[in-house]
């Protein structure tokens, strides 16, 4: 009886499992699981980038602590960057004596700054060596143009043309105010200096270079007679006179700030005097409320987005890289869209659909799978050396042997990426053209329109959403590409933007900075790894956001076009 019962159960269960499988339920679960994993991966990535990258700009409290080790003790001052557990064995093997029971010990990464006095601005400390932790309210953090952050206690300020202010004589409040005023003034003067150097003197240099090229050209043509030479000399003298005037202005400005300085006491008691001319900003994080810190946070975030990098890209902003990325993607789009569309129209509308067309189509599809570095090598060999070299011979002989277009630059980078993304645009456009109902073409032809008129007035407008799809895919691929760019135009530091006020405004021959390469450079080529790490996260986040933004713009444009031409239900 029991046996039979068991058998019954068994024979009942098997069909139930089978029915469950047949109902499609497991597949739904599998699909849902796959989607969940993907979503978690993407959200996790973004969260990691956001948390690690954005927390960098928060003005953290500065810890003052006495560290004692083997009867010696020293005072330290700095921001806690992170705390991790480390095995005691590991520490002992490294020759560090630890007292606690173990087996694991906590250690802290302290950003102590003051690279000019302490040698390194990051240091690992074993927590058990810590004495009492203090957060002294009068600690000053000074962000500087050189040597990284300064941490210390303000002792006095000496001014150009005015008596010094000291904490001992005038009190901490007055000294702090005097420092802030001086920093504000100095920053303004420095802005002015930068403007003169970059814009005005930049323009003069540009003009002088053009005069030199014109002279050289005349020389090459054998047309450099006395009148022309005198002409050129006159113009050159005029530029040089303007330069001297600006130089005088610069001397005055430099002089006005060079004597401002502040003196401060380091954690170990040394008192040092430093120039205010090299200060970006100073703040007292331990004395700031949440709102003051928030204000500082956004100020620093804004600086990151709008300023130029300094200190081998580990400090300052990334604006040139952002600008370069967006400009290159836009140029690439302008190049790739017409080319791709024209090629797709020919393949789909005009070419007879025979063996050759099929072969070309297969070849185009396969081009999309070629590794990008191959395009980079091709771009370097063909565009830069061959085409660029020829262009220089024909149009810029005066500048030789210095290459104008025969060297990596913005134009070649855009062209290389356009080539890289061309297959995507062709394939998407072709699919769009193929989807347009035959009845609409016939309707237009039956009204006496030629094929070209039909193409222009009916087919292409209707295929425009498909073209946008191609462009979206192209932008998504191009904006994240780094490998080929390293060969055809991207550099770690470009002194000027490729778009400025000097004729012809858009300098296609210039090298430029790019966020993707910037991440690589900051993360892996930087001498100061700890300082660079948060910037890698922040830059990566920004790159992702920019690509998303470019894509969103293209997607919304496509949706509007789709709305307009939604008759594909035929």
């Amino acid at each position, binding site marked *: 009886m029991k046996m039979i019962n068991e058998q019954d159960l068994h024979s009942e269960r098997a069909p139930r499992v089978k029915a469950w499988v047949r109902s499609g339920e497991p597949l739904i679960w599998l699909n849902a699981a796959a989607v969940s994993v993907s979503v978690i991966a993407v959200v996790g990535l973004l969260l990691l980038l956001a948390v690690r990258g954005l927390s960098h700009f928060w003005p953290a409290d500065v810890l003052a602590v006495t560290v004692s080790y083997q009867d010696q003790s020293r005072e330290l001052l700095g921001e806690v960057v992170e705390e991790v557990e480390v095995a005691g064995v590991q520490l002992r093997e490294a020759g560090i004596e630890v007292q606690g029971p173990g087996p694991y010990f906590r250690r802290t990464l302290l950003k102590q700054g003051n690279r000019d006095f302490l040698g390194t601005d990051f240091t690992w400390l074993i927590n058990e060596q810590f004495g009492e932790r203090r957060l002294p309210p009068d600690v000053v953090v000074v962000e500087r143009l050189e040597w990284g952050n300064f941490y210390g206690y303000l002792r006095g300020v000496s001014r150009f043309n005015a008596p010094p202010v000291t904490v001992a004589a005038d009190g901490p409040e007055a000294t702090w105010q005097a420092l802030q005023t001086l920093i504000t003034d100095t920053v303004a003067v420095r802005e002015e200096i930068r403007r003169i150097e970059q814009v005005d003197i930049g323009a003069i240099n540009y003009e002088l270079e053009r005069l030199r090229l014109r002279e050289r050209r005349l020389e090459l043509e054998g047309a450099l007679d006395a009148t022309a030479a005198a002409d050129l000399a006159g113009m050159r003298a005029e530029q040089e006179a303007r330069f001297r005037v600006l130089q005088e202005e610069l001397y005055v400005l430099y002089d006005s700030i060079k004597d401002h300085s502040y003196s401060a006491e380091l954690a170990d008691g040394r008192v040092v005097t430093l120039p205010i001319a090299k200060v970006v900003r100073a703040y007292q994080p331990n004395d700031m409320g949440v709102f003051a810190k928030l204000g500082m946070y956004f100020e620093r975030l804004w600086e990151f987005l709008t300023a130029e990098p300094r200190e081998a890209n580990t400090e300052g902003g990334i604006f040139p890289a952002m600008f370069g990325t967006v400009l290159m993607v836009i140029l690439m789009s302008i190049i790739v869209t017409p080319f791709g569309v024209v090629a797709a129209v020919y393949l789909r509308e005009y070419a007879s659909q025979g063996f050759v067309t099929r072969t070309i189509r297969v070849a185009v599809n396969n081009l999309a799978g070629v590794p990008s570095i191959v395009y980079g090598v091709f771009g370097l060999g063909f565009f830069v050396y061959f085409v660029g070299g020829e262009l220089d011979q024909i149009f810029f002989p005066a500048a030789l042997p210095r290459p104008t277009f025969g060297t990596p630059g913005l134009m070649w980078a855009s062209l290389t990426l356009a080539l890289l993304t061309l297959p995507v645009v062709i394939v998407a456009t072709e699919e769009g053209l193929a989807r347009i109902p035959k009845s*609409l073409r*016939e309707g237009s032809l*039956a*009204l006496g329109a030629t094929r070209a*008129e039909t193409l222009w007035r009916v087919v292409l407008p209707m295929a425009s959403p498909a073209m946008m799809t191609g462009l979206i895919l192209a932008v998504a691929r191009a904006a994240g590409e780094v490998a080929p760019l390293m060969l055809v135009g991207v550099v770690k530091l470009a002194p000027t933007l490729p778009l400025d006020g000097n004729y012809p405004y858009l300098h296609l021959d210039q090298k430029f900075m790019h966020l993707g390469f910037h991440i690589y450079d900051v993360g892996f080529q930087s001498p100061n790894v700890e300082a660079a790490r948060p910037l890698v996260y922040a830059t990566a986040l920004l790159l992702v956001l920019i690509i998303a933004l470019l894509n969103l713009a293209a997607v919304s444009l496509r949706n509007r076009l789709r709305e*307009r031409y*939604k008759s594909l239900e*035929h």
Partner: protein
Amino acid sequence: MQTHAIDIQALKRDQPQPSGPAGPAETSLRMEQLNLFYNNSQALYDINLEIPRQRVTAFIGPSGCGKSSLLRCINRMNDLVDGCRVDGRLLLENEDVYDRRVDVAALRRRVGMVFQKPNPFPKSIYENVAYGLRIQGINKKRVLDEVVEKSLRAAALWEEVKDRLHESALGMSGGQQQRLVIARTIAVEPEVLLLDEPASALDPISTLKIEELIYELKSRYTIVIVTHNMQQAARVSDMTAFMYMGKLIEYDDTDTLFTNPEQKQTEDYITGRYG
């Protein structure tokens, strides 16, 4: 001969009398020994046919009999098909349509065509009607306005759409779309109108409206209509051609063809024995 054919008199009784010119009709289109090949297979065999001016001529026959192919020969729509070849002569007002000197675009302006499914362009109603004129380079607003109104009135659509001329044509019903396509076609003032099963995708009321429209239009255009629907052929046409397997079996007055067909095949078809 007693047949079970459609009672043509009963069908015609409710219709208004044809408003075409009185008297014997002149020939607008003449086909002489017309053969059509798709690659190696022949689709039409030795068609000889005279289509009268300002009359409605219907092509009927079972699916695949070549009636649409024949229609598409008239405005050379078959040129679009790869491997399509025509021999014989097809004369429009005594000019050979297949002459090498003929400008196909100009021919298609003279021979308008309306397709089975409504195919308005994804543009506004106004732009749909103005399309043919814009192709010809006519962009003056005054002229366009006038032609658009005239064409929409002629297609009996003006009253329905005059307040939304600049809205998308894709928002209209199927029947309205088909009348819009007719308006678009007559806006370029063709001589011949080819209708390729114009009502087969429409509901009965829309079909009725299209048929009334055909009636209205035949005073001004030579109309050739392909239809599956024999009642429709009987209702709207003056002449009917019955085709079978690429051959023209019988061509006569609609009344005669339906009431007193000469050929056995015709009789079988219209009495519903096959097709």
